[in-house]
């Protein structure tokens, strides 16, 4: 099957019950999306599928033929970090960082749809992303800082 990953066409052979997460990590050389629960509970594996936020551990790899997948690896470019990434790095939103790629992608998706979310909207939008280290305080701040950097400059 063919699919578009981070802007380039890729050919891929997958097993029947293989998840998109496994295909990304083990076959496509994109380990940025993390595996922490494999049950759709933690958001560590968050990617954009045709622009929509999904847990890649819940998506069958075979079901993404011909579709467009974007992972955390696509957010920064040669110019540097995406404002969401910069905000996470600067506000102390990263400790062990295992949740970070998923949260960065989820925040990107949120701010694309809702440029200036309220605290409550952020909490709802990110409630599927578990972070065991930070207690979320700095993450919530990072989202607001990213929103400011992206839209209110």
């Amino acid at each position: 099957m063919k699919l578009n990953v981070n802007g380039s066409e890729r050919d891929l052979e997958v097993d029947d019950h293989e998840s998109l997460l496994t295909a990304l990590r083990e076959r496509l050389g994109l380990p940025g999306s993390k595996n922490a629960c494999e049950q759709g509970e933690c958001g560590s594996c968050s990617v954009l599928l045709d622009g929509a936020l999904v847990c890649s551990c819940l998506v069958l790899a075979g079901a993404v033929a011909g579709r467009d997948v974007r992972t955390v690896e696509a957010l920064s470019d040669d110019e540097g970090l995406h404002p969401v990434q910069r905000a996470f790095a600067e506000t102390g939103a990263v400790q062990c960082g295992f949740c970070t790629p998923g949260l960065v992608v989820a925040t990107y998706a949120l701010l694309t749809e809702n440029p200036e979310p309220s605290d409550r909207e952020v909490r709802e939008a990110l409630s599927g992303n578990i972070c065991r280290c930070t207690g979320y305080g700095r993450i919530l701040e990072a989202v607001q800082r990213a929103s400011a950097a992206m839209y209110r400059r």
Partner: protein
Amino acid sequence: MSTSAPRVRVRGVVGESVERPDAVPKVKGEFEYASDLRRDGMLFGATLRSPHAHARIAGIETSAAKRMSGVRAVITSGELPTRERFGLMKLDQPVLATERVRYVGEPVAIVAADSAEEARLAVRAITVRYEPLAAITDPVAALQQGAEQLHRSGNVIDEVIVVHGDPDTRADVVVEGEYEVAMQDQAALGPEAGLAIPRRDGGVDLHVATQWLHEDLRQIAPCLGLPESKVRLVLAGVGGAFGAREDVTLQIHTCLLALATRRPVRMTYGREESFYGHVHRHPAKLFYAHGATKRGELVFVRATIVLDGGAYASSSPAVIANAACFGAGPYRVPNARIHAVGAYTNNPPAGAMRGFGAVQSCFAYEGQMDALAAKLGIDPVELRERNALRNGDPIITSQPVEGSAPVAEIVRRCADAPLPPRGPETDPIALPGGAGNLTHGEGVRRGVGFAVGMKNVCYSHGFDDFATARVRLMRDERGPLARVHTAAAEVGQGLVTVCVQIVRTELGVERVELDPPDTTIGSAGSSSASRQTWMTGGAVLAACREVKAVLLSRARATGRPPDDLAALLDEPIDKTVSHRHRDTEPRDAATQNAGHVAFLFAAHRAVADVDIETGLIKVVQIATAQDVGKAINPLAVVGQIEGGIAQGLGLAVMEEVILKDGHVRNASFTDYLLPTTLDMPPVVTLLIEHPHPDAPYGAKGVGEPPTISSTPAIVAAIRAATGRTLHRVPVRPDDIVFDEPYRSGWRITPGDDPRRAVRA
């Protein structure tokens, strides 16, 4: 000799909120965690685990598995190179079960295969004949006469008795209570993972996510039948730890498979296996009596504490000692008897988790303090202030608190923090039950609760606790550069930033690079006990000072100013230093001596809304004041505090490894609930800085106190809202709705030997 700091101003020194050196790779998804490791020709390891809590192994049949496609090795206890056992404090754990299994999940066989799928299938093709035995899953029952002995040494892992003053003295007012803390999971997001690579010399290199490389090495090498010189450990990226990575999990297995196949082997646990594969927080049953004068001065504390150590000892002896030593809390208590015992059972092994024994007793003694306040008619905050430890006061082990004991100050500062706006909530998402839309606020009551806790920093009771650091100051095309090498595990806590800040502060060099931690340098000790800033930070500081001394003598010899680094670094300066804290005394019979290095204190106030009809809880705000000595990186300190509070909140209202006959009933993130953005309230953090004279820059260590007293503060808020007793955590909705007081099922006079318990 002048030791004045170089005059060049560098950014990112001690006291500033500095960005982590690994932040950029982490936000880009480029940071390599242990589970991301790969090598060409790598095999995948998998583990067969016991389905029984207690059974005799009558036979193992592996020939079918060995014949399967892709399978390169199958190892059972019969094929191990040695009969050595492993364990943090007692070598009581077999590498693979021999003759008997003692808990559900105990490793019985391991497999290496070309793919993870083939390894899993091969594990399923192994047949083991078990003869099930009766399982002991109640730790108090395990201690009673006639209980079946799970280990040759008996069922007592260790026992710590603290006797202080005259514990049998009388008091005007006495309150008694029994409490229970359930099993909590560390639930680090990164799964256990490691990659072992065989070496040409017959040795092995292991890249692994761990908290203490050298302690792993000490346990691994003998089990492989290799000298330590033939095993090298390298720290792989760690996705959180919280105590769960103190113990050996897959380290020995991965090395065995690599040595057997002569190929690199990676093992990674899935989430379910992780629940069985690592130790958890000790479940505890605690029986307390507090006595006080009519004016509210504490007269005595008597307590019996039974910790469930599970099938193997792990770090239980030290957890038991902590539960006992800090069993009366941060108060002046002239008379005490604490009898703490850890029991072997057929539950999964318990070991280190953030707070390490201090969590369990704090839940009980803070419940007692509230009960005492109610009985005396004194405000709970006032009662705590009145009894607060002051500088120089002894704790119940007779050791005086030196450095700082600002207990009354943190209590007052925390109590005075602004409260959240009152006003009825209208948005259901902000009410108990959240998006479930279960209430419009009719049955919702608000409560405020308060708690204070304490704990030691660094290792205690005569342990030879040290950390090693190498600092090299040199010059390259881009100018002066410092490199730091230690074996200390960065697990997320931010030690890497602290090391960089210390070097910048001491040497005036902005460019600081960290070598990967490994066992080619001396031990750094464990990333636990809130100790790495004190210990590895202290070692880096000491090494920097030696480097600086060389720099100054070169400056004197050449007549150059000491901050003219470019001119003074024709030759690099290279210093390696081992740093020790002051000696601590080993435990004596009544635990009355200076067993600890120093003490950490924090206070928490919780505000919670509770729906008494559904039993659902929404924590609205946490305020905290914490004695940190000195905040080396204030932003990172706030992160530790908020993260620690989230784990305390989890234990208070949702996190429990549910055990039934030794089986974990909820080994997944679907069933083991963790706090999310909707559960975690805003936190008001007040940093209290009284530098400790022995610590680098006075920084005392900050990781654990947030997890200790946040739990009892939240439960106190729920009690205040509902009037329920709530002597067990986590508090479940039914505990609120049906109001059945917790009963341990045992009668024990607080302070007595739990072997004298009778069934209630």
